[in-house]
């Protein structure tokens, strides 16, 4: 970014926005926005409470279970679609519909199907995350050079070895990209799922604080959540960079 001819690092723009937030908060024109400093103080206090910790564990648990399922199922279906034209034709429409559909609308239906508990949240995370993983895996598998597969066959690779030592490794960069995007969607899924079910974990806290107009804690929750989501996707991105390095010639 450039400002008055000077190079300004990205962090600087973040600081500017933080300053604006602080000023708007201090001026008191919008009671929905307390000063950032108060929010940060609230965040530090919040993470030390048992309520927050319990909520975080519930949320993390639903998120991780849903993500694990989404990765397993998503990669499996993606591989199937990438390798078989019949499966691709059969499943392609559905995956493409769901990847861009407003899935939040489905959560009430899920509540009827899976009850008001954690299962619904897990299913919501799964449904939010799985489709993009399917699509990216499929693209990765289709991008495996045919000669690499022929190489495996000509050197006597078993079916298992062909998939686990060649095809999946070759598609790993795309699969990881899919998982990274899936994680971001999964975070949305867990919050929306919990908000709509509204008696669980983070969603319960959001509900509580916003109903009582406890804006410091509300924003503290939000910032912690954003930071966690960015940290996760950053972790996967750094993994992706390493894999990209080895896959540099593709």
């Amino acid at each position: 970014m450039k400002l008055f001819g000077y190079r300004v690092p990205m962090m600087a723009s973040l600081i500017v926005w933080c300053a604006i937030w602080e000023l708007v908060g201090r001026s008191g024109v919008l009671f929905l926005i307390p000063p950032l400093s108060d929010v940060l103080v609230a965040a530090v206090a919040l993470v030390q409470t048992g309520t927050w910790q319990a909520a975080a564990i519930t949320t993390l648990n639903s998120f991780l279970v849903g993500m694990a399922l989404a990765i397993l199922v998503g990669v499996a279906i993606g591989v199937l679609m990438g390798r078989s034209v019949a499966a691709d034709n059969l499943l392609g429409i559905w995956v493409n519909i769901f990847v861009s559909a407003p899935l939040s609308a489905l959560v009430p239906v899920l509540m009827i199907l899976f009850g008001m508990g954690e299962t619904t949240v897990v299913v919501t995370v799964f449904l939010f995350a799985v489709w993009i993983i399917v699509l990216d895996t499929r693209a990765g598998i289709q991008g495996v050079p045919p000669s690499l597969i022929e190489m495996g066959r000509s050197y006597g690779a078993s079916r298992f070895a062909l998939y686990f030592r060649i095809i999946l490794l070759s598609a790993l960069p795309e699969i990881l990209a899919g998982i990274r995007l899936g994680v971001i969607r999964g975070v949305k899924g867990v919050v929306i799922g919990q908000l709509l079910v509204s008696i669980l974990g983070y969603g319960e806290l959001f509900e509580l604080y916003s109903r009582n107009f406890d804006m410091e804690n509300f924003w503290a929750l939000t910032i912690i959540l954003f930071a966690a989501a960015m940290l996760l996707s950053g972790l996967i991105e750094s993994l992706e960079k390493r894999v990209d390095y080895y896959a540099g010639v593709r």
Partner: protein
Amino acid sequence: MRNITAQASAAATRLAASDVAVEVRGISKLYSEVEALRAIDLDFPRGKLTTLLGPSGCGKTTLLKIIAGLIPATAGEIRVNGKVVTGPGPERAFVFQDFALMPWATVMRNVAFGLELKGMGRDERQAIAAKYIAEVGLTGFESKYPHELSGGMRQRVGLARAFAVNADVLLLDEPFSAVDEQNRRKFQEDLLSLVEKEKKTFIFVTHSIEEAVYCSDRIVILSRRPGRIAQIIEPEIDRAASPDAIRRDQSYLDTVEEIWQGLKRYVD
């Protein structure tokens, strides 16, 4: 130079049984609509380098992959060392035009990969791989990744991998086409010394007439699609001479010219 097909055609494509590594019998290939190969009968002499030459799209790669057992023929059969081919086998190894190296694996792991797939232990396969890495001139690059190597070096890795599994028959599909001209010449010379040393049967596909004449014991020229055998030539080059002398040799130049005259009619 010996022009075999000009003499007695049908019988001449067959050799005495014991000297034959690969027999091609009545091979035809149809890709749904496209007739790629029609009734090919051909013997590949053991321990020699035979080149398949022909216009683009005449079915050279197809024939090589049928011999490799990677794609099925529509009709006919292939025998390697007398045994009918039903799929890929350990007595054949393939060298790919685009190298087909695993980008996530080091040179060492790539070269040893055929042995790894056979279930050979780590130390044993690395010892064998190291020998062939040295033979193709890549000592010191064992722990490099493919993207850190030049095109020529990458194909040396592909070649070392094929040697490492100790196959009798090496199938090379335009191995030098993605290698620049200077490296290509050096590579051709190295290939010849490896042919000499390894006593294996080489089946080699190339687009380059000069490369074919320079490297081959035998050149099989295929006609335009559907591929059939148009001509078989044995260049009979004196390999004792230096590479530069060979490239200036009159019989070398005559052979190149003769093949060009034969192929010219296929060029549009």
